[in-house]
């Protein structure tokens, strides 16, 4: 089983966020807030199959969602834009924060 690490990066402020991988909810939290000192709100690692996986993030508190298809192992990052939209990035290397 290959790993998927999903990062919630910038723009989150006491939000309710849900993450689904291939339709199955793997994460749901309230109070999700970006820590300004690292530009990261939260991160979760899930086991995904070897096939292409669909990763969806829903910011329930703002009625915003985004979906991206990735080939595990992979690193996916979601950022909440000031206009309320969501931007994603996919990488084969971990996103770095400090």
């Amino acid at each position, binding site marked *: 089983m290959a790993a998927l690490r999903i990062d919630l990066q910038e723009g989150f402020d006491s939000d309710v966020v849900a993450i689904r991988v291939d339709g199955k909810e793997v994460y749901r939290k309230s109070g999700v807030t970006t820590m*300004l000192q*690292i530009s990261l709100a939260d991160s979760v690692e899930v086991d995904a199959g070897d096939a292409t996986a669909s990763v969806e993030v829903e910011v329930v508190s703002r009625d915003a969602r985004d979906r991206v298809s990735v080939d595990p192992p992979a690193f996916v990052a979601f950022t909440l834009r000031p206009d309320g939209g969501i931007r994603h990035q996919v990488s084969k290397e*971990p996103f770095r924060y400090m």
Partner: protein
Amino acid sequence: MNRTDPNGADMVGISAGQHEWTVEEVVQMRIGEATAAETPTVTPIPVPEKPPGPALPPLPKRTVSGRYRSNGAPFQLELRVDVDRTHPLGKVSGDYYQIAGATVTYFGSLIVDAPTITVTATNVVIEGTGKYTFTTSYPKIRVTIPRAFIIQPAPPATVQFFTLTGAAGAVYVCPFVSSMFRTVLYERDLVSDVTTPPFSSYNTGSLPSGGPARVLKVESAYAEAGIEMQDAGTWDTVPMTEEGPDAAWDNAELHASMVKHFSMWKDEPQWKVWELVAQKHVLGPGLLGIMFDQQGCQRQGCAVFHAGLGGATPDKLRLQLFCYVHELGHCFNLMHSWQKSFATPPGTNRPSALSWMNYPWLYPAGEASFWNAFAFAFDDGELVHVRHAFRNNIIMGGNPFGIGAGMQDSRAFADPIADESGLKFEIAAHKSFAYGEPIVLELELKATDMRAKGVHPYVHPNFGLTKFAIQKPGGQVLLYEPVIEHCVAAKAIRVDAISEPVTDSAYIGFGKGGFYFDQPGLYSVRAIYNALDGSQVVSNLLKVRVRHPASATDEDVADLFLGEEQGMLLYLLGSDSESLKRGNDAFDLVLDKYAKHPLAVYARLLKGINAGRVFKTVSVDRKLEVRKPKHDHSIQMLKPVVDAPEAMAVDRITLDMALRRLALAQDAVGDKAAAAASMDRTRRKTELTAGKM
């Protein structure tokens, strides 16, 4: 003396310490703008001709940039001059400290952003108008630093303040302290499971970069910015068991570890910082470092994680240096380059900054371009902050991360920098109060050493010698003002570490400002005791929680307590005054309709105390009317107060007072046994003397 403006004219001569002025120096100070150094009005002393000899090359003059600090009282000025030496920013800044007795307290800060700098053969003169964290009538500043050769000691800087129209204000003579603008004690610890060596140094010439090749450590990186990071000594090893069974750190574990292992940690602002070298954070190997300290006095600690950083190759060493410096930058309250707008007040985002505070991988032209151009430095805006920020915006434990200039006038109740008074003033209260419940503090003043100290016993705020600040849930800070100020005769008593402390209880719920705790929420309270030697002894910071009403009854009773007249009655501990009749009626209603409610004990207390006293009124036709004590009624009211179960009891000091008043009433009706029993229950056994409670 205007102790609220350290630049004021009444400070002239006071802060000059032991310096003895010569007439030449006085003339130098009084001569007008810019050309003062060239036109002395004194007769030069003849100098004998030099004997002939070989011509010597001219000696270079000392640079003047660095840190200077005045001595004396009531204010000291720590001055930072930034006009020459490495990467000068052309600024002057400073911090003021108030000296009161044996206590030193931070007062405020200044910065002169764009001063005029005049350099002559004899002086460097820096002039401009400052920005201050306090109000001053003397905002203009002139800094005069004599030129000296490098073989001579660094001369002091003389700082004079002026009004906008040129009237002279305070003068500070500030001896030179250091070529560094600030000094921070830097302690590092290492977790036992870190698998790679902690960072030591990196040669910036190992890989392409934007600046000169040199060997950099964390300390030297900051030294290039003008900040001295003083290594606190050897590394301690933090056991890996503190990171929990998941073998990864979360922020709470990091904070707990800091409190345990950072030998210099205190919950107060200090120029001290801790950096932990650890293996991994719960947020995964992508997290290379974090400034985790965002509780209490923040920004005192940070951590770096070698799961992502570790290694000995040049790129790894480069990244380690970058991350170690970057996290400490957050402790200095620096935000990321692309997030300056999140600061309070907001700054300008600089995503293209070649700075320690950027992420190389977010650089617009790409990570490789960043490293090729990076000179291992802060950008100019960040240099202004680390060298010249107002103290509370930068000091570790100062303002929270991201919060800028702290302009609120709460500095008077800040922790002192130093307290050699030998006294400790503590305030305490119930853990929480019901909405409407009288807020009563227990006050205790004691000596901290065996040598006896003379103190005055007037710790109650009514006497004006102890001040109380209350921060409301919304952040507003108010000074408690008693309704009536009591003038007292001078009195001193001796206390030492083994004698009884001076104690009292104070109702601070109502004063000249009305009700101070008029909404549910979390309040902070702090007090300053003004000692006989001038020391200002700052108390602990007390958190007071006012609970939300839990029922309609709670709300009704709170409404009956929170009227202006009721507040006055609580302050006076009862009164017969007709002008407070509605307040008395409200407390009567509490006793009638809500007799079993916990707050009814306070209605009984003030009714019982008032009934037991002689009450004099002057009628409209100017006749003195004396109401005699109603001892039976006093006993009837006070007995349930002193016998109340602990959950509904008043504080200990108020209980003692109630017992003594009850004993007086019992004695007055002839029940000597009951009076003696009441007195026996008090903590401090005194003679039962009528009217002497």
